[in-house]
């Protein structure tokens, strides 16, 4: 279990005088903004990846940038690890406390500071919820494009830290493509602005480096996002297949035909049946896979492209092609998809959501291999994908109360990620490495590359205090992890140098 941090495989820090730390933090913060009692710390012991839990030493809830500066300075001086936390919805254990750490919650940074309709930007604090931005600018005919499934709850600071994606990335891009400027605080307590109000800034593109850096390089305190004009017309098509491989083939054909859907999602038979029971979306429950293909733009173009998509899908063997009859049905189709994760609760007590990306043309083969792994691990898996991006979300079903089940699920998930790397993809498309995929980093990257990441980290955080034990594995961990896999006879990429 990866919530056991290991002195030999993870960073270590000297013991800290906790009462002295609390006294110094109390001098910075307003009463009530410092949590030290176990019952108050408990809600912070995990994030959206609920399998791992560690109790932090202290939780701080600053409300001003100057307090963030002061907190980071104290932690730097006393050698205390700091884990920044937004809404705590992350799915890779990125906000899992490191033993003895300070949890730096940005929850009180929850104000929208400025909206500029002509510049199409919004200046927001990191604790603002993703969906709140779109809601605040809807009357201007604008929206904030990245829409992770958790958008009702997740915060924009976490989105930047994870480079969050969502359903509409294929057309509108990831978080990194929708940022204009960020203000961040270094561990030394310096306030630094990355990006700017123009479309570029002089020097290295540090804003790109910091986006998706998972809290390892600095703490964001203010974010300027780009806003996008809302499309004039949107329509969604539901396509059913009697074979999941045919659906995978159709996805590659749609993209190859030059169509850029706003969203192109796929669910396999198990996922769509569970979603149907849960949300009554009107999905054909006898299908083995469905695609949801959303297009937006001028009405005539959308109609034209949907006709092409329908033709492509029929040629690929679709058994049914159905347009949403109206806006209400369009929303119902999506409600089924967005409810796919909670719907798993009907199939098993727990599920483990995996997040690899593969080249689209590998979809059929990868699905076959996941089915084979499912049999060999003895755990069911339901597949939900952002198919247009090749981003897989296999949901491994297990029972946390059954002895050994979580370990099996963890091993099965690891095997899927290694498969993604082996076919030319990546271990994480949008959920981040966090703590969960720290070992698989050693599969995707060579020791030299891991060392380069560590050097980049050290350039911004020489003491290694920001979110330690996450995202970038130690070389010791990679050596140990590589060894385990050789022992199991399942070494992926045998040509990668081991040590």
């Amino acid at each position: 279990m990866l919530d056991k941090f290991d002195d030999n495989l993870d960073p270590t820090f000297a013991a800290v005088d906790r009462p002295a730390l609390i006294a110094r933090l109390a001098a910075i913060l307003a009463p009530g903004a410092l949590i030290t009692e176990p019952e108050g710390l408990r809600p912070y012991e995990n994030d959206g990846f609920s399998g791992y839990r560690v109790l932090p030493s202290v939780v701080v809830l600053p409300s001003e940038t100057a307090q963030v500066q002061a907190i980071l300075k104290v932690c730097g001086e006393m050698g205390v690890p700091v884990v920044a936390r937004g809404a705590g919805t992350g799915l890779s254990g990125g906000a899992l406390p490191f033993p003895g750490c300070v949890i730096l919650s940005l929850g009180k940074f929850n104000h929208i500071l400025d909206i500029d309709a002509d510049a199409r930007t919004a200046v927001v604090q990191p604790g603002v919820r993703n969906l709140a931005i779109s809601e605040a600018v809807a009357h201007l005919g604008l929206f904030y494009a990245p829409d992770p499934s958790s958008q009702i709850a997740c915060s924009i600071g976490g989105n930047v830290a994870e480079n969050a994606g969502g359903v509409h990335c294929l057309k509108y891009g990831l978080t990194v493509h929708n940022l204009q400027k960020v203000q961040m605080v270094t561990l030394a307590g310096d306030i630094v602005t990355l990006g700017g109000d123009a479309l570029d800034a002089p020097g290295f593109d540090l804003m790109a480096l910091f986006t998706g850096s998972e809290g390892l390089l600095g703490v964001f305190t203010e974010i300027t996002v780009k806003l996008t004009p809302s499309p004039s017309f949107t329509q969604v098509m539901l396509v059913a297949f009697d074979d999941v491989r045919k659906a995978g083939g159709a996805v590659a054909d749609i993209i190859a035909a030059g169509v850029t859907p706003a969203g192109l999602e796929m669910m396999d038979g198990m996922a769509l049946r569970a979603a149907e029971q849960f949300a009554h979306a009107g999905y054909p429950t006898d299908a083995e896979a469905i695609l949801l293909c959303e297009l937006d733009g001028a009405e005539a173009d959308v109609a034209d492209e949907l006709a092409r998509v329908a033709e492509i899908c029929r040629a690929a063997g679709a058994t049914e092609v159905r347009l949403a009859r109206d806006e209400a049905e369009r929303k119902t189709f999506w409600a089924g998809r967005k409810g796919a994760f909670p719907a798993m609760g009907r199939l098993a007590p727990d599920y483990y959501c995996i997040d690899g990306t593969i080249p689209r043309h590998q979809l059929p083969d990868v699905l076959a291999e996941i089915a084979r792994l499912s049999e060999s691990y003895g755990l069911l898996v339901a597949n939900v994908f952002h198919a247009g991006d090749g981003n897989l979300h296999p949901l491994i079903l297990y029972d946390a109360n059954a002895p050994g089940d979580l370990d099996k699920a963890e091993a099965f998930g690891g095997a899927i990620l290694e498969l993604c790397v082996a076919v030319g993809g990546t271990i994480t498309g949008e959920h981040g490495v966090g703590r969960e995929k720290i070992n698989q980093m050693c599969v995707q990257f060579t020791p030299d590359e891991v060392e380069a990441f560590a050097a980049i980290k050290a350039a911004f955080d020489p003491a290694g205090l920001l979110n330690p034990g996450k995202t970038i594995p130690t070389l010791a961990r990679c050596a140990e992890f590589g060894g385990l896999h050789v022992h199991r006879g399942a070494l992926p990429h045998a040509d990668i140098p081991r040590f």
Partner: protein
Amino acid sequence: MPTSLASRPAEGVDQTEALADQVRRASAEHRPLRIVGGDTKFFYGRAVEGETLSLAGHTGVTDYQPSELVLTARAGTRLADIEALLAANDQMLAFEPPSMGPASTIGGVVAAGLSGPRRPFVGAVRDFVLGVTILDGRGRRLRFGGTVFKNVAGFDAFRLMAGALGGLGVILDVSLRVTPKPRAQAAHIFEMGWSEAQGRIAALMRRPLPLSGAAHHDGRLHLRLSGPEAAVAAAQAELGGKSDDPAFWDSVRHMTHPALGPTAGLWRLSVPAVARLELPGEMFIDWGGAQRWLAAGLPASAAREAAKAAGGHATLFYGQGGPVEAPFAPLAPALMALHLRLKAALDPNSILNPGRLYPDL
């Protein structure tokens, strides 16, 4: 219907070993390297004194599957060859990098980080880089990113290479996201002054219109539309104006327009599109107002201060005869400190294009 790979150019030549060897030797002896592709953008940035490390012979498209919307090529592959291959498959590089000459290479395109007229509508070079392989300052071969669009494993060191002018690594190959060519395109021209044009552009950009270019020069607003047929036709009908010569947009992209030439020197002001700038001389305005070109002749301090006051920065793109000492706007001290530490992390002996961006970097 996956497209065939028959039109892929020759496999090219892999010179990784020789290049790594040269970097390792230079690193051991602390000798600076001047990294060169086609050397068509030699004027951009500060002059580098050092032994030439040429990527021009490290060529070939190593992977291109149109249905994956990604192309991987070695750094020395010519931009023209890549664009011809993409065009044969009805695809393109949406960020429209300028070709400053036929020898322009894809490695140089990424290292320089220059984007064309579509930039405000689709994004910059860095938005289309999916992965790079580099040699770091010790000659180690490192691969960052990959060939898939959604990829958040490790730091995005690949995007960092765009615009770093070689200072953080020698780009060996690059994987770029490619885009289907728009099915329809149109160019319109309007007689109007800049202040009226600026308001018009801001109003248009708040709506979901298929804009792909918005420039102003010499009392004329030029708008380009690209996208699906109906959207382009509807926008054309609404906009009115006269039909424009499409060659205008090529001349903007590749900077062959007379107002964008090197003769008199050229300032590039990157500012918010809605900013008001009061500077003497006639500007060539692109990116809907976010990129403004001005013939040199005004003192650096005037250009820098005006751009900064407007919320942006100024670059001396072409100097007036001879190398430019300070092409880029100075960085705040805390930000420069981070730049120096990052440089040291990837190039500890400071041998990769040292000083190209800033004297100490």
